[in-house]
């Protein structure tokens, strides 16, 4: 076996060293494209998945605590905030109040969720302060001021799909009627645009103002939103918060994403899986065809090698090594091409619905899986044709028939 391997290595290395360089370049180029085909589309899909998950940050931070059971509110929000803020992994935390309301501007009325928040705390928690496309974000002293989601404003992305308030401007006044019947007038201070329905169909006002409207005490909230120092520590932080004695339901961002975006993510995953299998089948077929043609072109050499007493195992092993080397070069070229594409699409993201940027996500596990799959396929693709040629009659192989 060792002799077979030594001879196989000589066969492979000499064919590689002294074979036609143009053919080698072509084979490597095609194999590089096969590799890119295996990894690039899933990276884009990963980017889309990450984009959806990132949308969740507006409302849910890294971790969110919600009222337990049928309770409308977390009754001891400040107490929970104290417990949360001492957890080592937690960077910041805030409370919010979400209520249903209808917003009226001129003759147009839309239903919406109003979130009462503590504006200065949100800078450390969510992206709300950073997605103001017109006007300004709220301040801690803001009263009778409102931030309107872009999809409620005519002319913004998505507004054509939903009921909107028409063409409103910063400084315009809207009437908000709450579920308890109270109506208040607010001046529009800003328009926020997150290009995501959970954000852009909502409106924001100061927590203190909403507390007054519903006449609830200081310690009530409909959610506590937490940002951790390192997003990878979300699960760990959640465990510590539970250990600190918080009884209310706690969710990480990914758990919320799973729940809310499950259908979309499952569809994406399905497309992703199908595309991977199709790519793998196409890749396997192409590798087999390339290596098969290559072996057939060397049929005469295989016949000669057999005739002078080289064992079929050495010949088959030689082609398996040769094929694996081709694929290895193809993978290296493919990785280069892949990272160039990643770099290009990171600096020039694909724009989705005019403003959503999709940045591809490097998936190391998939890259390792693809490299392994291609190497395994290459060995099989080298073995099958070489083995079939070694089984042919020597004379016919030498004649190249």
């Amino acid at each position, binding site marked *: 076996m060792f002799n077979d391997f030594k001879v196989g290595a000589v066969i492979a290395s000499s064919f590689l060293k*002294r074979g036609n360089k143009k053919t080698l370049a072509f084979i490597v180029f095609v194999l590089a494209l096969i590799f890119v085909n295996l990894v690039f589309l899933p990276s884009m899909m990963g980017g889309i998945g990450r984009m959806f998950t990132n949308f969740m940050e507006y409302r849910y931070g890294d971790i969110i605590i919600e009222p337990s059971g049928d309770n409308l509110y977390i009754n001891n929000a400040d107490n929970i905030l104290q417990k949360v803020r001492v957890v080592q992994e937690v960077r910041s935390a805030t409370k919010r109040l979400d209520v249903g309301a209808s917003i009226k501007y001129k003759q147009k009325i839309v239903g919406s969720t109003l979130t009462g928040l503590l504006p200065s705390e949100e800078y450390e928690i969510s992206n709300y302060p950073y997605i103001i496309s017109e006007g300004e974000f709220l301040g801690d002293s803001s009263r009778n001021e409102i931030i309107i989601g872009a999809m409620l404003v005519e002319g913004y992305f998505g507004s054509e799909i939903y009921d909107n308030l028409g063409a409103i401007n910063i400084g315009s006044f809207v009437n908000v009627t709450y579920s308890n019947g109270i109506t208040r007038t607010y001046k529009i201070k800003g328009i926020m645009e997150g290009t995501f329905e959970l954000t852009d169909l909502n409106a924001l006002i100061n927590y203190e103002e909403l507390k007054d409207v519903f006449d609830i005490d200081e310690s009530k909230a409909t959610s506590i939103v937490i940002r951790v120092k390192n997003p990878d520590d979300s699960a760990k932080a959640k465990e510590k918060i539970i250990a600190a004695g918080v009884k209310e339901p706690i969710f990480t961002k990914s758990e919320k994403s799973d729940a809310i975006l499950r259908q979309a993510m499952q569809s994406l995953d399905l497309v992703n899986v199908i595309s991977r299998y199709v790519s793998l089948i196409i890749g396997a077929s192409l590798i087999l065809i390339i290596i098969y043609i290559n072996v057939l072109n060397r049929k005469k050499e295989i016949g*000669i090698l057999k005739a002078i007493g080289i064992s079929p195992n050495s010949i088959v092993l030689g082609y398996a090594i040769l094929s694996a080397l081709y694929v290895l070069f193809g993978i290296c070229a493919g990785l280069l091409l892949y990272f160039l594409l990643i770099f290009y699409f990171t600096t020039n993201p694909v724009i989705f619905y005019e403003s959503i940027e999709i940045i591809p996500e490097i998936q190391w596990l998939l890259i390792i899986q693809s490299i392994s799959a291609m190497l395994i396929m290459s060995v099989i693709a080298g073995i099958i044709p070489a083995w079939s040629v070694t089984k042919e009659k020597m*004379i016919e192989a030498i004649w190249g028939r």
Partner: protein
Amino acid sequence: MMINVKNLKRHYKTGQIIVKALNGVSFNIKPGEFIAIMGPSGSGKTTMLRILGLIDKQTSGEYTIDKLNLTDLPEEQRRYYRLTQLGYVFQDYALINEMSASENIKILSLMGGQGKIKALKEAHETLVKVGLGDKDDRVPDQLSGGEKQRVAVARAIAKTPKILFADEPCANLDTKTSAQVLDVFKTLNEKYGQTIVMVTHEEWHTKYVSRIIRLKDGLIVSDKKLKKSRKK
């Protein structure tokens, strides 16, 4: 070493026609003989050489070397016998174009279980024997026709075979280059006692050989010894 060929036949089908390439040939070869197999095209020369070289199989008959019956050896043993006991020079050199002269030879030693360094040394020594000691690293494309054929001879004798077969080794060479190759054969035969069986259709080649077997229509029509050949 004694080679015995008894009633060797090779028939094959071409469409509906059965071609009798060899129709029952019998002869013996003694060690150190340099034999020319001659005859017109289609007489069965190459077919016989391929069977003797274990590259093709006979339809019937018996073929033994040193009383070992090679007729029905399994393929793996035939291959091992080809590697270790027989040398074969093809008409069109049959070198691996991607391998250097020395690699074309070295590969046989590696297959035989030798280490890389010893295999390289042996390959070089064999190239020296055929007068190509300075062409180790040349690939076939960088060699002349005569040099290619001498590399092919070197490959065939690298494992010091019991018998060396050569199938029209000068078919693609001019007279001068042919003489160079035949001189190599002569030296191998006279200096090292190498047994050689060579197919040729050139009458002037017979001055190098010790015996001529003539074939016609798959049968031996004459078997003539020319001079005493060197014993191994």
